[in-house]
């Protein structure tokens, strides 16, 4: 699967190892899935010593997802990385939030590394365009839109299906939410945007580009279809041709052109 990717994004790395939350920590819903994995990961030291060298053998550009409970956690991990793009997981619904704001965390990381920094924002952010401007001013090189959104499902006995009750909701239901976030942030910034949220087909990818994303990421669909990267790439090429775009770049932001300019 990895050979068909333009980049591989790791699971979030935290300073200490994390086992994650107690099972049951996944559940399917009508139009998506919930996960309360809880950032299970081997921790920063083992990631650097074992996981990262292994991932390098894939021969693809690597993006490392960085998490933590404080700005210092994030910055320390950034300082230890080299020859990767960093995606700051600022918005996981399954762990306690850091007390600092997204912009403060980005600023701390900017001071710690010259590697490219992408800020992954939550779709539940009250003013996502405002947050986009703030993280840009703090030194972010790009945005990743969107993370999962808080969700809950009940089982047949009217009890939550997840052990932790609430989890992150992903999959097709998130697609309009992702489109709205990309659309809003593109109006606020010229930063590169990795659009993600419920992409299953080339057409879904095209719609993210149309709203203003410059890149597209796949998540939940990979669980159902590990061949999705190759398939979506082929489908996107067909969609672009059908729509009359010579290159993917020509499709970026076309949805914006139709709306009279209004400032947010």
């Amino acid at each position, binding site marked *: 699967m990895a050979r068909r990717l333009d980049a591989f994004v790791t*699971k979030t790395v935290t300073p200490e190892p994390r*086992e*994650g939350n*107690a*099972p*049951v*920590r*996944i*559940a*399917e*819903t009508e*139009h*998506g*899935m919930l*996960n309360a*994995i809880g950032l*299970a990961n081997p921790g920063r030291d083992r990631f650097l010593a074992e996981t990262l060298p292994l991932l390098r053998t894939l021969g693809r550009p690597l993006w490392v997802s960085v998490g933590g409970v404080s700005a210092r956690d994030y910055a320390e991990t950034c300082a230890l990385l080299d020859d990767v793009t960093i995606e700051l997981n600022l918005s996981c619904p399954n762990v306690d939030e850091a007390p600092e704001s997204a912009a403060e965390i980005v600023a701390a990381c900017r001071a710690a590394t010259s590697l490219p920094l992408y800020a992954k924002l939550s779709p539940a952010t009250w003013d996502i365009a405002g947050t986009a401007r703030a993280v840009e001013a703090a030194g972010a090189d790009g945005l990743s839109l969107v993370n999962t959104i808080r969700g809950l499902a009940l089982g047949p006995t009217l009890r939550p299906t997840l052990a932790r009750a609430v989890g992150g909701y992903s*999959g*097709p239901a998130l697609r309009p939410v992702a489109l709205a976030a990309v659309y809003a942030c593109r109006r606020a910034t010229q930063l590169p945007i990795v659009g993600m949220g419920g992409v299953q087909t080339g057409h879904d990818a095209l719609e993210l580009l149309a709203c203003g994303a410059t890149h597209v990421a796949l998540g*939940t669909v*990979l*669980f*159902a*279809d*590990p*061949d999705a990267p190759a398939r979506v790439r082929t489908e996107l090429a067909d969609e672009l041709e059908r729509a009359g775009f010579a290159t993917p770049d020509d499709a970026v932001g076309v949805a914006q052109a139709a709306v009279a300019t209004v400032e947010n």
Partner: protein
Amino acid sequence: MPRRERRSVVAVEWLGPYALLRVERGSLDPGVPGQFFMVEAPGRVLPRAFSLCLAPRGELAFLIEPVGAGTRALAALPPGAELAVFGPLGNGFRLDVRRPLLVGGGIGVAPLPYLSQALERPPAILGFRTTEQAAAAALLPGADVVVDPVLVTDVLPADRDVLACGPEPMLEAVRAVVPNAQLAWEAPMACGYGACYGCVVEVDGELKRLCVEGPVLCSS
């Protein structure tokens, strides 16, 4: 190596309330008993995990209990319907056992027919909650069958190499009688191949992914 292929439904046959879904095998490898496949569930976001029940010539067969939207949709598929099948996945049963005894509870009978063939038809004990469900015992000719309120552990000898599959309380009860039994566990799965970290169960105080470390686990 697991493969993912689109395969056609050959037929769905009913054994009591259980549906035996037969699909064309194509170039899929049936794997070893206890391994499972991720099968596309029509209209659903995620596939479903089923252990291989039987490997008839040119086919793969999965025993399904229709309990929710995905399993009901699968049980209703007509011949010729296509779906994605991905596998074989996970670790199966160890077959180097001297005195095997197969133990199954309810839908846990699913991996046992294929296992039984591999071990040349050892003794088997199957337990079901109802006599309707006990129709699935036809998949294991010669098995001892008990129905609620009799439990498999009521008739389980302690001196065999037990290979068991069934509900968690049954597996715990079997392990209490036969500490080194091979137990095939189950957990909700999203990917089935180790990516999502969703199917973990606690084993000896640690969380292990059933799709990678299991689904068959044993204490020894």
